[in-house]
């Protein structure tokens, strides 16, 4: 059975939902930000929230947490890592993912259900999207103020060419002005995925969608 490790920084707030999502398809435990030992962990989730108060810039301080050093090594060794929302921002700041997240174009906090389109056709096969075909639409909520995906134009071209754009907002669903409707990107190898929407909040019909569960099921190699 797959064991997920969910990072917990001071200021994380989606860590428990992430654990609950992971536990639907495997085992999960929290990893306090001062821990360095990822022994026994098969996949890492860097959850949403406001790590270290988001002081200076979102994700900027969390990058230096001892646990993040361990995650960087884990990622370099090919381990599956999923950064959600603030976790995506942390992975970008840490240089594990390309680009940066900027303030939403509309200035406001957005909280709504959006449609995502998977773009996994020519890219590196991400362990988080194995069971998801290119062109499939997932319904997953967003809730953020700093979610506009940005990279210089040449870098965006390179990412698209290399198939590192894993998910885009469906037409009319881009909530924040993200460049080229990008909602999620992977590293070159595909094992690290960053996503602004929250798949861990879409794992039960009670909250409107189970589509998010498919990412966790993909890593655990169990049917969603």
């Amino acid at each position, binding site marked *: 059975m797959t064991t997920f490790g969910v990072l917990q920084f001071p200021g994380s707030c989606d860590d428990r939902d992430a654990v609950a999502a992971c536990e639907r398809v495997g085992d999960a435990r929290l990893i306090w930000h001062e821990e360095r030992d990822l022994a026994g962990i098969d996949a890492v989730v860097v959850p949403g929230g406001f790590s270290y108060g988001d002081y*200076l*810039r979102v994700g*900027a301080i969390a990058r*230096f947490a001892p646990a993040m050093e361990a995650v960087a090594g884990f990622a370099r060794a090919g381990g599956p890592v999923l950064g959600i929302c603030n976790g995506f921002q942390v992975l970008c*700041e840490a240089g594990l993912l390309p*680009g*940066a997240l*900027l*303030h*939403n*174009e*509309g*200035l406001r906090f957005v909280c709504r259900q959006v449609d995502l389109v998977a773009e996994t056709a020519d890219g590196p096969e991400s362990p988080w999207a194995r069971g998801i075909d290119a062109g499939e639409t997932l319904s997953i909520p967003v809730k953020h103020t700093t979610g*506009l995906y*940005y*990279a*210089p134009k040449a870098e965006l071209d390179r990412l698209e060419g290399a198939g590192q754009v894993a998910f885009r907002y469906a037409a009319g669903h881009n909530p924040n*002005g993200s460049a080229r409707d990008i909602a999620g990107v992977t590293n070159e190898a595909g094992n690290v995925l960053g996503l602004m929407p929250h798949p861990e909040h879409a794992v039960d019909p009670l909250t409107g969608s189970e589509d998010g569960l498919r990412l966790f099921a993909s890593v655990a190699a169990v049917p969603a």
Partner: protein
Amino acid sequence: MKARVLIRPKEGILDPQGKAVERALPALGFEGVSGVRVGRLVELETESPDELDSLCEKLLANPLIEDFEVELDGAGDG
């Protein structure tokens, strides 16, 4: 030694804070103000001013989206 680090969004990067400030000004009767960009100022004291550029690139600024300028205060006794 005292230093001031001025950090601002790179040219061409959308700055919604600057836009919001710019849009608020006419409501207060301040006309003709444009190109508002909002950054931040970090004041610090350091014993290793040589390391300031590196410190800025690694933490104070994200070079992908922000420019920074370092201003040293030679008169400080830091």
